[in-house]
């Protein structure tokens, strides 16, 4: 019997991605909740390089980095919906967008909400440019994955929920349905789909959590100590 454990955190979009993938595949797993300010010895043992969640442990073997874990899940549990398409070119496109979302999208969007002044303006511009590219890829499909949720939808989870909360806390309107109608439709489809809808962290609890983090960051900014980051 395969033993699957996920070391994660309720507030983390990275951790949430893995839960969604496992649930889509119908894989039973044990969720071990980590306090990112007080990491367990087991987490440090399983991810000595980055010391971060999420970590998937399958039959005692750890896999780290959410994009790596998602591909591992797709390759290991072949029954259930595919997270990546079969065609090599389409797979390359999925990997490209997933990487872009993580390397540029999420950091820019978080920065836009946490920084002030010129840094904020630059991050807002970068976010808007990326959102335009993403809007362009949706062209008539319900999801980035086509008719069903795929890896890009899962990786883009932070846009549909976390970023909406962050931009509200920061008083911004970078991602709106008016500016990005296709992304607006995608967000509705994504958030209302079965597995996603049942597994989102409660909005008020998440808002409260990030409000406290944003206030702490603003205080640090004021003390000219630089911004905070999202702990994974």
């Amino acid at each position, binding site marked *: 019997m395969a033993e699957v454990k996920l070391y994660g955190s309720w507030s983390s979009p990275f951790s949430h991605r893995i839960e969604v993938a496992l649930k889509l595949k119908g894989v039973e797993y044990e969720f071990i909740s980590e306090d990112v300010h007080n990491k367990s010895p087991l987490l440090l043992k399983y991810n000595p390089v980055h010391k971060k969640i999420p970590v998937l442990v399958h039959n005692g073997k750890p*896999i780290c980095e959410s994009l790596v*874990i998602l*591909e591992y899940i797709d390759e290991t549990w072949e029954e259930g919906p595919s997270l990546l398409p079969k065609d090599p070119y389409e797979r390359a496109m999925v990997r490209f967008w997933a990487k872009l979302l993580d390397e540029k999208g999420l950091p820019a969007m978080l920065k836009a909400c946490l920084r002030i002044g010129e840094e904020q303006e630059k991050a807002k511009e970068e976010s808007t440019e990326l959102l335009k590219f993403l809007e362009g890829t949706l062209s008539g499909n319900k999801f980035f994955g086509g008719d069903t949720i795929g890896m890009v939808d899962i990786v883009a989870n932070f846009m549909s929920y976390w970023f909406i909360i962050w931009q509200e806390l920061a008083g911004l309107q970078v991602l709106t349905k008016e500016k990005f109608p296709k992304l607006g439709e995608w967000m509705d489809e994504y958030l209302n789909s079965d597995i996603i809808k049942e597994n989102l962290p409660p909005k008020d609890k998440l808002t409260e959590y990030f409000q406290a983090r944003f206030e702490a960051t603003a205080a640090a900014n004021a003390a000219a100590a630089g911004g905070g980051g999202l702990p994974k």
Partner: protein
Amino acid sequence: MASEDVKLLGGWPSPYVMRPRIALNIKSVNYEFLEEKFGSKSDLLLKSNPVYKKIPVLIHGEKPICESLIIVEYVDEVWNSGHTILPSDPYDRAVARFWATYIDDKWFPGIRAISRADGEEAKKKAVEEVIAGLVLLEDAFIKCSKGKSFFGGDKIGYLDIALGCFLGWLRVTEKLGNFALLDESKTPNLFKWAEKFSSDDAVKDIMPQTDKLMEFAKVLMAKSKAS
């Protein structure tokens, strides 16, 4: 599979461009190498990679594929010739992808940090960090290679390509700074591996010569000082 029109947009000094070239060599795929002029971006590049505007870009038929490691996986999935580049076991693949991400996100930026470090103390710290990273990679090598010559086993694989492409720049950094990064006593396996990798058939003709790369690095440094 019959090679359709395969083009690679790139530049000889770029370690990222080396990656798909090694992959294409492993698969014996004929391709047209379109060398971008340093300091400018061709219309084809801007059209093929509007998001990043960077090399390498593989253009297969009319379809562009961007990002070096994504191209390597694409090449591995499309062509059956030669040997497989990614490991066949999903866990081994996850380990290879993990370390490739580490190399790109943490380790290679550490090498660039050496040249940008201001003052002796900062330089020393930057060098120590790169060496510490190599010690981690030494350990990864022992686990992945399982006693064989490469991360990929008997033949060059994904992680060999991900790390090996940086050997040219690593050697330039060592020469310019007059210190050793890849140290035989600290990382004996990687030290041996570096030689084997550099002289592999799929690599040796496209690994830039250290002297030529050094000249290029000096031009780069002069340009950045002037601007």
